[in-house]
């Protein structure tokens, strides 16, 4: 990217809409940034010499004689080791009172990894939570969101997972974070003594919503820097991607684009995929793993945002309150880690896959039994046993408040099977049962 030798100032704006303004200017590049009376803007359309700029914080108060200065480049982030421990806004400017970063300027939203240069992910990420490690094992280079209703403690769980994950760097991308949640993250990271492993890009509810659109790209650009140049294992936390998608729809709506399902832009899939696909295991050892949050409305996963997300990510972790035990669990039916096959039974015990599947199947039988009893039918002895099993399984393994080793999770599974069921009811391959089932 070339930078212009001198910066020309334009002062005549032709058109102003809610989100954009247009003016005549020469030699402007597509997606180039500019400032309009100091407000950050980006080129979204060029027709001849008529340039349309999207102003991130909105056009309120912009006069027709505002000063427009083009930067000559797309949005950039200065990257260096100095990023560690720092807090930035959506534009990559420090918000922690510290100095500007002295580093290499890199355009955000850069090119994709050549698929043939990727390495197959193979390193297990242990979180201590059995709903994840046992049933939906995570792997470095994976991308996976929590699907949660807004009242679930998803940020708390995410922070906990991040700290236990043993990543070299944790990059927080906060979009529409409440101030409380922002401070929460700050405190947890500080208390854990992890601040210098953490870089944060934060857009809070007080900031203009459209600015959020820059946050994931900022976070991922920083992540790529540490993963490629320092060969580090980087964990990126993106919360809340639903608010990111909402900002996309605001922009497309203001630009009069034809909406598709749920008022979302027709390009939602590509827009989200572009970000999530930054998750990668590099051949040189570094990796970018993305754990995101997609808040749902009333558990509805058919809404365009969770739906498109599910089609992109490598599974999802579905949070739900289990009324039988009064705790938040990771729902084994609706959660999935698609990369678990790469590690379970290989990096973990050989019996892991079968124990996992069997427990889920028995839990499903318990759900059926519950429905049956709610409909007033008598329960068989087997039904009764599944219900007892389900309660213990939920408490000892599915609840998010546990913190144990994977081996112990598998053993707990076997213990519960043998406590409540016969060998044929357990239905595990004979070989495996003989070897591991008789504790």
């Amino acid at each position: 990217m070339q930078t212009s030798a001198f910066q020309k100032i334009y002062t005549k704006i032709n058109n102003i809409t809610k989100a954009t303004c247009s003016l005549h200017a020469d030699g402007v590049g597509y997606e180039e940034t500019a400032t309009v009376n100091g407000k950050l803007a980006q080129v979204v359309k060029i027709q001849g010499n008529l340039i349309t700029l999207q102003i991130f914080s909105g056009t309120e108060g912009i006069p027709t004689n505002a000063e427009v200065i083009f930067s000559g480049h797309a949005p950039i982030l200065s990257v260096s080791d100095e990023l560690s421990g720092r807090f930035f806004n959506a534009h990559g400017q420090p918000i922690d009172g510290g100095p500007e970063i002295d580093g290499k300027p890199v355009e955000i939203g850069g090119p994709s990894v050549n698929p043939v240069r990727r390495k197959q992910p193979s390193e297990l990420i242990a979180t201590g939570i059995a709903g994840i490690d046992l049933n939906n094992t995570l792997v470095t280079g994976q991308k996976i969101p929590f699907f949660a209703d807004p009242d679930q403690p998803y940020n708390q769980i995410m922070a906990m997972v991040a700290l236990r994950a043993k990543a070299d760097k944790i990059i927080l991308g906060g979009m529409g974070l409440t101030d409380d949640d922002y401070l929460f993250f700050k405190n947890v990271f500080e208390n854990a003594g992890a601040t210098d492993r953490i870089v944060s890009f934060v857009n809070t509810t007080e900031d203009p919503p459209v600015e959020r659109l820059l946050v994931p790209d900022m976070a991922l650009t920083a992540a790529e820097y540490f993963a490629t140049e320092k060969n580090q294992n980087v964990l990126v936390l993106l919360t809340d991607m639903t608010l990111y998608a909402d900002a996309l729809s605001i922009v497309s709506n203001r630009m009069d684009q034809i909406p598709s399902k749920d008022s979302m832009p027709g390009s939602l899939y590509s827009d989200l995929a572009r970000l999530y696909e930054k998750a990668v295991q590099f051949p040189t050892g570094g990796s970018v793993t993305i754990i995101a949050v997609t808040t749902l409305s009333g558990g509805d996963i058919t809404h365009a945002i969770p739906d498109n997300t599910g089609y992109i990510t490598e599974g999802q972790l579905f949070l739900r309150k289990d009324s039988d035990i009064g705790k938040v669990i990771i729902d084994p039916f609706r959660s999935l880690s698609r990369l678990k096959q790469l590690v379970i039974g290989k990096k973990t015990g050989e019996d892991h896959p079968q124990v996992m599947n069997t427990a889920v199947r028995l839990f499903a039988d318990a759900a059926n039994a519950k429905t049956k009893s709610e409909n007033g039918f008598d329960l068989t002895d087997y039904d009764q046993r599944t219900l007892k099993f389900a309660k213990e399984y939920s408490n000892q393994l599915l609840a998010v408040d546990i913190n144990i080793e994977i081996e112990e999770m598998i053993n707990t599974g076997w213990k519960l099977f043998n406590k409540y069921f016969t060998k044929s009811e357990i239905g595990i391959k004979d070989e495996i049962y003989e070897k591991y089932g008789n504790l």
Partner: protein
Amino acid sequence: MSVRKSKFNKIKMNTKGKVKGIIANLVIVEADGPVSQNEICYIIMYDVKLMAEVIKITGNNAYIQVFESTRGLKVNTIVEFTGHMLEATLGPGILSKNFDGLQHDLDKMEGIFLKKGDYAPALEDDKLWEFKPISDIGDIVIPGSWLGEVKENWMPHKIMVPFKFQGKYSVKSIAAAGKYSINDTIAVLYDSNKNEIPITMVQKWPVKIPIKAYKKKPRPFKLMETGIRVIDSLNPIVEGGTGFIPGPFGTGKTVLQHALSKQAEADMIIIAACGERANEVVEIFAEFPKLDDPRTGRKLTERTTIIANTSNMPVAAREASVYTAMTIAEYYRSMGLKILLLADSTSRWAQALREMSNRMEELPGPDAFPMDLPAIISNFYARAGFVYLNNGKSGSVTFIGTVSPAGGNLKEPVTESTKKVARCFYALSQERADSKRYPAIEAVDSYSKYIEYPELQKYIKENISEKWVDNIMLAKNILIRGKETYEQINILGNDSVPVDYHQQFWKSEVVDFVILQQDAFDTVDASTPIERQQYMMEKVLNIYRLNFKFESFEEVNPYFKRIINTCKQMNYSKYKSKKFKIFETELEEIIQERT
């Protein structure tokens, strides 16, 4: 190539243009000469050239979709038109390659990240191939006629008269057996005016136009074995057939397609990873070089070509990728080979069309998709098929695409348009996936229209078994009745229905667990040859035909669970192995307890 055509190319080569407008990857170019619809052009941006395709023309303005990010592009940038449409490069060396959607060789690109304008050519110019002539001087040939062959991996790759030729030619000379590179002349033909036309091993063909160098395209009639029981034994597909796999996210579309690509009985597999996850392609890169083709014993990579245009790669190239893949498939079909083409996911291709149509402010159809979406989908599926070539040999392109319906709702434009044209419907159900009943194909709602074809029924009777078709019908019936009885049991209660109802239901569960369900990650269970499928089907149907004696409904569930468990152990054991036989004897004993 005929004289008239090359002249035509020359005129077009001169057309240049200048960028006038930019909206994302839609660029408006003012052209200084003739431009044709779907012509390829290059934007000359600093030292890189960005490839683009003309998608609309008004007056002097060409609307082009750029196959790259347009970041940094400025007005007045020079554009060069090429005079041809997007073309596939066809010749030896395609097999085992990993291409992007525009057939650039991904392995030859430098660096970890994809660079704008890094267009590594599809084939190697300097590689030598062992050529063997198969035509003689004086032979009368037409487009698609086989002139010679080279060994590509182990496959005989035919060198053909280019498809772009028209009419009849005669062979003036043909190269002797020996080593040649793709650009060496391996034959010289005379056209009707005795002009000499040199032929090399490589030719080009516009991807959006079907290759029709065959004699006829009858209805397909040969079963294509996939090793997947719920397909072969319940909803079989045929060589040259079409099928589609719709399903909500996470229900197993990709796992199923990967299973097909590993096991299906085809000479060549082409996988178009179209707008999906890069890690899924990486899985193929990692696994296929290690896995054996069960039929030839060679590595799977040797029969596979991958077109990877994953979701983070340029959207416009996503649309092109399925056409590139289909053109390659048609090329190999013309060599008399059986090709299986898999595309995951055709919905992403449709979405690419939607994004562009919206940018051009076209009047939208349902769900903002372009109005002509149904026609585009149906034209594409129509390119699959079983063909008789002009030399009497046959070849086929079987196409199976996945569909990712928004919200998992099958009443959406892509699913509906596809359902009208694809003859096999493999509906994945969320419910089955949730209860881990994999593959989650809903066997009752799914169908294969081919079982109704008398040609296929005849083929099956002659080549597989007399009873196969009847067994399919019976198994489906058992499943339907099982579902009905399950509902009745649920409404009336366990003890208010006759014990026979429970038996009826559990017999359908036996079909479900033993035939439908199949563990794609178990080395033995993953693939079941037809003979074994028949054997197990007979076993299961035999269980269905027996009348078991039960005192109360409570005995039914545990009893059938034992049956299912033993049958599953059989599925997990090597066919007819000692272990298999032990479980089989165990099964007989269990059955005898109650008959």
